[in-house]
């Protein structure tokens, strides 16, 4: 019963025995193997495309050998020169860059003013209908971002672009180009889509500020405006900077709106420029542009993280007394409500109703030409590319089925991968594997979708080794979509698994359950809820996704989003609007139901 006599330290065991022991342990613990598989898959799907796009940017592409004066495949600075210094560099890069800056800045200002103002109204004042407004003002984010641009075109389009004229033009009012196309409408449309970002982030921050902090300042004799300037504003800084950088990051990678509204006047931003370069098959230039977008995206997220870290010391835990007193607007209560309603009307009702009305009238919005033929007619005279109502023929149904199939599969892959990553990170015995998975699965978050799609094209467009060329296949689309949504699902997967801890599984293990039994009977049943949100959120976001899809689909795999953009290209306003309405309806309904059923908040899903 006593301590065994201290034996002489055993001779160092032979390495092979030790290895045998390690192997036996590994054989019984698939976590290690799973971790390794995930590392390889993520390295291939996330890291490799980025490497490929960088290498494409510095290598002579086929067809460019004459211009570059080098053999295809050689290392070259030709594309850098072409994008940054050549005579066409203005057209290729500097002008789109400037335009991107203008659009980003404009969108940020717009979103800050509207979103910030509404956040203040809803959280800090006694404006009527606060609860309803808090939900209603988030709706624009549930609509596909280019809903607004289609509505805009329906209203303001002039004869410069082909197809149906806008409402005003049809009434005989000449809409100038600056109103119909280019920076102004792009800023307004993106601003209307992204102000809910600011609204949510700033609103949450305002809600969390402890009223006692303000009371203390008031008691010490600070007048109201000093309290706002010295207390509230500094505390709001992290949320504001986060919101700004998020909006800039999103605008950087957004494709639909600048494409629809910029194309007629050749107003290009980086994302549409990148798209153009890829369509023109100038792979080298496209790679440089994609790399630039990636770099800007990474810089944005890093500065956000840095700012957040610096502001962390500001983070205040809301006391219970937070926010039980609201500023009394007195006589301006109803005018303020009117303002908030106006925001809702302009950002939700106007675009949706415009699209709806235009899709049921021959001359846009002219009620005397009311018709349901754009929805249901078997034959539409004059529409060669799409000669029937959207619900007729196979196009919409095929596209819907494709969307459901592709986005659904991507969402399921994404959620399961996220959970498995969480499992390996929490359970894994190898900290380096866990660290790699954690960071690499988050990497796509830093990269605007359109640049990531371009990077994937670089890697998968041609056959490499045993991997055949995947361009145009649904398989590639599914992979890229799953990977771009991975940051959200891996974060939530890691969070869910961390919260669960390893004990429930270990308890099952000690009770005699094999790995499969543990997965089937313990882990997945417990994580059912996390799995469902992990599927639904990427699914909704993927359904509205255009930037990635537009780069990777061919006519063989039409999705709802690409179908609607295709119809815009044809100039079939009503049909395009009808399809966008379908997308908006599906995405809104699903978001709403998910929020209702899971009580999850959209704010938590902002990353996805």
């Amino acid at each position: 019963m006593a301590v065994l006599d201290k034996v002489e330290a055993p001779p160092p065991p032979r390495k092979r025995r030790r290895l045998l022991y390690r192997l036996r342990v590994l054989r019984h613990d698939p976590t290690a193997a799973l971790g390794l598989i995930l590392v390889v898959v993520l390295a291939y799907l996330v890291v490799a495309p980025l490497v490929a796009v960088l290498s494409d940017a510095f290598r002579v592409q086929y067809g460019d050998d004459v211009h570059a004066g080098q053999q295809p495949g050689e290392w070259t600075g030709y594309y850098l020169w072409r994008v940054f210094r050549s005579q066409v560099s203005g057209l290729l890069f500097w002008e789109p860059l400037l335009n991107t800056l203008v659009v980003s800045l404009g969108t940020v200002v717009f979103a800050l003013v509207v979103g910030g103002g509404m956040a203040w109204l809803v959280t800090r004042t006694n404006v009527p209908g606060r609860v309803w407004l808090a939900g209603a003002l988030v709706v624009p984010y549930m609509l596909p971002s280019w809903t607004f641009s289609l509505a805009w075109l329906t209203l303001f389009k002039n004869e410069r672009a082909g197809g149906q004229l806008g409402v005003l033009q049809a009434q005989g009012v000449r809409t100038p180009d600056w109103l119909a196309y280019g920076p102004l409408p792009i800023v307004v449309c993106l601003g209307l889509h992204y102000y809910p970002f600011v609204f949510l982030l700033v609103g949450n921050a305002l809600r969390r500020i402890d009223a006692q902090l303000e009371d203390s300042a008031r008691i010490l004799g600070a007048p109201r405006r000093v309290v706002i300037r010295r207390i509230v504003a500094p505390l709001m800084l992290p949320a504001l900077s986060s919101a700004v950088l998020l909006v800039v990051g999103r605008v950087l990678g957004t494709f639909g709106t600048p494409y629809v509204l910029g194309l007629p006047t050749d107003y290009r931003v980086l994302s549409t420029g990148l798209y153009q370069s890829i369509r023109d098959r100038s792979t080298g230039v496209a790679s440089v542009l994609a790399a630039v977008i990636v770099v800007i995206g990474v810089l944005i997220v890093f500065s956000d993280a840095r700012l957040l870290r610096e502001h962390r010391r500001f983070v205040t835990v809301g006391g219970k007394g937070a926010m039980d007193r609201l500023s009394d607007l007195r006589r301006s209560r109803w005018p303020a409500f009117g303002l908030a309603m106006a925001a809702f009307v302009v950002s939700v009702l106007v675009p949706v109703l415009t699209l709806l009305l235009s899709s049921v009238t021959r001359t846009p919005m002219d009620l005397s030409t009311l018709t349901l033929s754009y929805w249901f007619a078997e034959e539409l005279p004059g529409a060669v590319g799409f000669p029937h109502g959207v619900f007729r023929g196979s196009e919409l149904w095929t596209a819907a089925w494709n969307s459901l199939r592709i986005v659904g599969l991507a969402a399921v892959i994404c959620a399961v991968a996220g959970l498995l990553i969480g499992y390996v990170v929490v359970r894994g015995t190898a900290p380096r594997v866990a660290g790699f998975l954690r960071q690499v699965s988050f990497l796509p978050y830093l990269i605007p979708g359109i640049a990531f799609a371009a990077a994937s094209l670089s890697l998968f467009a041609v056959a490499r080794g045993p991997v055949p060329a995947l361009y145009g296949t649904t398989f590639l689309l599914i992979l890229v979509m799953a990977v771009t949504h991975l940051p959200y699902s891996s974060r939530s997967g890691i969070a869910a698994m961390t919260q669960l801890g390893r004990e429930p599984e270990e308890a099952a293990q000690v009770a005699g359950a094999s790995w499969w039994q543990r997965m089937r009977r313990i882990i997945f049943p417990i994580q059912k809820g996390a799995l469902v949100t992990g599927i639904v959120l990427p699914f909704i976001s993927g359904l509205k996704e255009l930037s990635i899809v537009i780069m990777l689909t061919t006519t063989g795999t039409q999705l709802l989003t690409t179908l609607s953009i295709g119809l815009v290209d044809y100039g079939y306003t009503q049909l395009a609007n009808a399809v966008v309405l379908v997308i908006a309806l599906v995405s809104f309904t699903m978001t709403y139901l998910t929020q209702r059923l899971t009580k999850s908040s959209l704010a938590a899903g902002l990353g996805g």
Partner: protein
Amino acid sequence: MPTISLSGIAKSYGGGDHAVKNLDLLVPDGAFMCLLGPSGCGKTTTLRMIAGLEQPTAGTIAVGDRVLDSVEQGLYVPPEKRGMGLVFQNYALWPHLSVRENVEFGLRMRKVPADRRRARAEAALEMVHVADAMDRYPSQLSGGQQQRVALARMLAVDPAVLLLDEPLSNLDARLRLEMRAELKRIHEESGATIIFVTHDQLEALTMATHVAVMNKGELQQLAAPMDMYGRPANRFVAEFVGSPPMAIVEVGPARTELAGSLLRHVTSRPGNHAPAAIGIRPEALRLDEPPVSAWSETAQVEAVLPAGSSWTVRLRVLDTELYAVSYTPVEARPGDTVTCWTDQMHLFDGEGTRLAAWNAVEVSA
């Protein structure tokens, strides 16, 4: 019934730090072994290695003749094949399964037919007095009930080895007392070998048949509870076990007046070496009439802290503060001068190893 043996067990998580260093431990068949030590001493790691949830970096773990881990021979049995029972500190009940399903899980894994499964689950739940909560879910149970269900879940499969990782630390004081008695009863009824991890010395002293005190990954002492209390192997054990803790007086070259007084007394006896430190347990420091042979000194009473059945007195003895615990009422008031004495001292050498008890009435288990 099995004997659990650990030999040469070491565990490191990379880097130079060892969670467990070259541990040799023999848990006899049917023992109630407590692994006792401060947090981070490697006791939970040791338990998890026995369960197979962690792997040693060196050494061998065996139950009876069955080798579970042997790094040197390349042998390994995964946790699910070890047939042990384990209760976690936070119970780790499966939230999506009812109490009954939780308890039946292990039997299901062992492919026990449904009717026998049911009967055994009910019997196990009866044993821990939560049979009435059979169809509830873990979130609907109180902490004490959850703890009992975790116990029942383990007992249902009737394992020969029960491992418990601080299972009482999340319970309130009254429930803890009750569960201590319960565990002791279960140990006697089932005859299983139990290894129990705790940082609570009272738990170790009250329940265990054997206590292994660990610190910084090393075994400090393995003994019967009262032996360990009476004859701590070294300074660490002496200070860790006992509350209020043993007072240790350094007897270095720059010693206090108290140390000088104690040392003169100790070395006045022939055959005693000069120790490096002297320890006195509070209850060995008495305030009544001193016997002639005892060490005694006048002391100032600084505070009297009655606690119902005992009285803790803070004394200033010469230049040092000491605590005395008395089980008879203390009449003295703060500021009074009293005589304190003891005839039980623990002597430690420079390494901290206990040399002897001076004048001690050797306490035996």
